[in-house]
């Protein structure tokens, strides 16, 4: 079932409000919605709520044989299938364009930015490495799936602990020792912008309605060290360079805020255990 387009009234109201300097949910232009992080009982399970958007990330691991040309490299895999739970527009077994874009973006932001030390996942070179799998489940779609998924994935990876192993000769044994955290180099966070009114008006963290009305969008992935990990502007209206620079400056502030919130949530959870 395809999503119905917003009515002309809704569209006009949203655009008129933006022109007058207001968003319909009462946020300022560069505000994120309230971010809520909930951890599961076991390591590596995180539920992220960004306003009404809801994403569940679950990290799991297994021991597998590495590729012969990269004998010491572990694996990091993402599964970002959009389930019809998020929206009836997503069908089972058929990828929409949106789904392809979301998966590609998360892959770029997390894996290709080398956020996780895959060399550290090696147990016996050429024989055994850890394969880390991140399953991202989209539960509710109210816009900006990418940012929510990115926060969920990195928080789950930070929260995850893999079993400790001891190597005896060629073999490895799982031991009853404290599980160890993954070594993560940096925390990439996505910030999505949506553009309206011929690119004159831009907003951070668009809702579903804003996404339906927008003229274009851009996602910037940064870490707290002000390093750009990925930048994606797939289509939409053309933009000036100055505007992109302005976006990155806004994103720097947002990334710092979100990173601090993730770390605070992780610390609070660690204290409870």
């Amino acid at each position, binding site marked *: *079932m395809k999503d119905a387009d917003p009515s002309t009234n809704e569209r006009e109201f949203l655009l008129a409000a933006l022109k007058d300097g207001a968003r319909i949910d009462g946020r300022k232009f560069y505000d994120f919605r309230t971010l809520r992080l909930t951890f599961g009982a076991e390591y590596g399970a995180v539920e992220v709520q960004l306003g009404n958007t809801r994403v569940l990330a*679950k990290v799991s691991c297994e021991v597998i044989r590495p590729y012969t040309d990269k004998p010491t490299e572990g694996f990091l895999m993402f*599964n970002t299938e959009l*389930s*019809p739970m998020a929206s*009836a527009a997503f069908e089972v077994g058929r990828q929409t364009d949106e789904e392809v874009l979301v998966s590609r973006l998360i892959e770029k932001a997390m894996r290709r930015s080398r956020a996780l030390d895959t060399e550290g996942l090696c147990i016996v070179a050429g024989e055994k490495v850890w394969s880390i*799998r991140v399953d991202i489940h989209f*539960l509710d*779609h109210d816009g900006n799936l990418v940012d929510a998924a990115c926060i969920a994935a990195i928080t789950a990876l930070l929260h995850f602990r893999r079993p400790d192993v001891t190597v005896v000769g060629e073999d490895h044994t799982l031991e009853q020792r404290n599980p160890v955290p993954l070594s993560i180099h940096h925390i990439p966070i996505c910030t999505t912008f949506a553009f309206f009114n011929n690119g004159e008006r831009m907003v951070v963290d668009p809702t579903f309605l804003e996404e339906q009305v927008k003229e274009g969008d851009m996602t910037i992935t940064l870490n707290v060290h002000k390093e750009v990990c990925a930048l994606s502007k797939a289509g939409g209206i053309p933009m000036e360079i100055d505007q992109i620079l302005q976006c990155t400056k806004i994103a720097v502030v947002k990334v710092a805020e979100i990173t601090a919130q993730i770390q605070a949530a992780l610390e609070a959870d660690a204290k409870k255990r």
Partner: protein
Amino acid sequence: MSRLDRTRTSAHQLRPFFSSQNLLNRADGSAQFDFGESSVMCSVVGPSEVKLRDEKLDKATIEVVVRPLVGLPGIKDKAREQAIRETLEPLVLSGLHPRTGIQIVVQTMKDDGCILATAFNATILALLDAGIPLKSILGAVTCIVDNNSNEILLDPTTEELANAKSTHTFVFDNKSSITSKEEQQESVDVATLYSDSTGLFSEEEYFECAQICYKAVQAVHGFIRTAVQKKLEKEYQQIHS
């Protein structure tokens, strides 16, 4: 005897229930149901447009999608989809909504055993939340026969399931559960909606499991009733405040 999860004292004790309805915005109805550390979220969309090839002229088409917590959906999930769909089909008054579709999506959120039973309970709560007309409600529980002690343990955890000789999941509706007190004490003729057993077990064991699960399901029915009642009270207050 103390159970492996140490929070329970008796073999016939269920883990604490938890449920919450109307969590998702895009779905017509949704619910989460927990048995201790097992949690399932379910969303319902419908009655709505249906694909032409799935359209039934005299009733609504029920589609069930089961999604695992880890990995891609496999055979096990397909089997669960079929189990849930075929159990629900006689329960839903689908004749009231011909040529429409009701889509049910079941997502495991936390897995600590008894996912199928948890999924059944989440599904019925989500259907109630979506306002889909139903003939009756259902309740599900799982029990195992322990390998060492031969004792029947209700609502096992993953740890306990690893040590099971046989596993039985039962679903009962609430129509047959209105029985008089004396009947409840003796063996009752139970009306089973769904039963799934794996492992090696005798006929007596099977019927004993059915009896025990039937008694346990009464608690689930009661819980679902209270959950819906509370939700309606809250909604009523919101309208009239």
